[in-house]
Structures are given as C-alpha cells and as structure tokens.
C-alpha cells in the first residue's frame, strides 16, 4: 500500500505513547499497531479526525504517499 501513516514520527514529536493515544482516541492498541505498521487497508474519517484532534495535527501531517512496488509508476511523465 503506497499510503503510509507516519504515526511513529508524530507520536515522537508529541512525546506520546501508543497506549495513551489508544486511550484518548478510543481505538485498541492492536488496531493502532495495524495503522502504524502499514497493514491497514483503509482509515475511517472518524478515526482520522480523532487522531488529528488528539495529536493536534492535520491529516496531511499523518498521511504520506510513497509509490511502492505494488503500484505502477506514473506513465504520463
């Protein structure tokens, strides 16, 4: 999946643990780990909104696009 969630970096910047974030957002640690490790297929807007609220950031601060092997390169260029 070329979309990744930079949860590690944002958590480090906010000096917040995954457990604390899980408690604040109301998502299990297992699900946050799925997000962190890039195994998630999709993120609900409600989850993203809760993450942005608790981490005091914008969706763009969390999400990053990295073209990977599973996606063909842009042929327009």
């Amino acid at each position, binding site marked *: 999946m070329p979309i990744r969630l930079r949860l590690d970096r944002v958590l480090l910047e906010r000096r917040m643990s995954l457990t604390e974030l899980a408690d604040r957002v109301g998502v299990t640690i297992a699900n946050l780990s799925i997000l962190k490790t890039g195994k998630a297929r999709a993120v609900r807007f409600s*989850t993203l909104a809760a993450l942005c609220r608790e981490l005091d950031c914008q969706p763009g601060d969390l999400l990053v696009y990295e073209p990977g092997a599973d996606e063909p390169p842009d042929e327009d260029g």
Partner: protein
Amino acid sequence: MRALGPGSVSSFLKIILDVVYYALWIGLGALGVVTVLAVLLTFNPALLENVDVKVIVVDGVDLARPWPLLTGGLAAAGLYIGGVLLIVRALRRIFATLTAGDPFHPDNVRRLRVIGLILAGLELGRYLFWMISASMPAVKEVDSDFNLTAWFSVLVVFVLAEVFREGARLRREAELTI
C-alpha cells in the same frame, strides 16, 4: 427465527449433520466389514461351505462365483459413502462457522470447492460404475441416466464458493479498516 448464530436454524442443521455424519461412519464401518468378508470369500469360497450360495442366477445367467462381483459392488458403495461422508464433514464445518456467526470464514471457500469437486467425482464415478456394470456378463441392462440436476448442483456450489471468497475478502477489508 434467526438463520445464523447460536440457537439458530444453522445450529439445528448442524446437529442434524452431526447425526448424519456419525451414522455414515457406522454405515461405512459395517460396509467395510462386509467387504472384507466378501474379499475373503472371493479367494476362499469354501469358508461358507455350509451355506448354499455358490450358484446364483441373475437374469437366467448362472454365477458360479458371486463374491468378486459382490466385492466390487461393495467397494463401489464404500467409495460412494466415503464421498458423501467427506461432503457431510465439510458441511458440518461450514455450519459450525454459521453457528458461530462467522459465515465468511476464509476456510469456507476451500470447503465449498471440495464439496463441488466431490459431487462431480461422485457423478463421474456413477458413470464409471455403469460402464463397468454394462460390461459384466450377468448384467443385461443398465438403468443409466444423465442427471443434469447433479451437474447443475456442482456449478451452483462452485459459484457459491466464489461468493464466499468475495465475502471473505470483504470481511478482511473490514477487519483492516480502522
């Protein structure tokens, strides 16, 4: 009445399948014992010296040694019951997932495909049995029919397997949506 979950129609059907499953095992065991006896009598008909079964007349044809024919018939019946047993076993496992409220378990796809393959195998086996029966000297006429319903069932089961595969994929997607 609910269709899925504990105490539902699925759990009721699971109980029926359990009963059928164990009855089939008993039937297969009994058939195995009879087949072994028939095999023994094939090689040594003198085992039943006191019983006058050496001459059997089928449609006017005397069969001096009926045991090989009987053994073949019993083996075919055993294979048929074995196939049905495998189908019921797969169905039991599918219904166990339905009873647990998890119909789109990934293993159900494989189970449905196995059921489809066995159904097709049983139907092909039936044709093979006709062909062999027709070549027997004692058999004058074979009551054969091409069962279109059986092949239709095979196709339906394979389509259902694909439906379940799609369901399992969607379930996985839902699991990985945070």
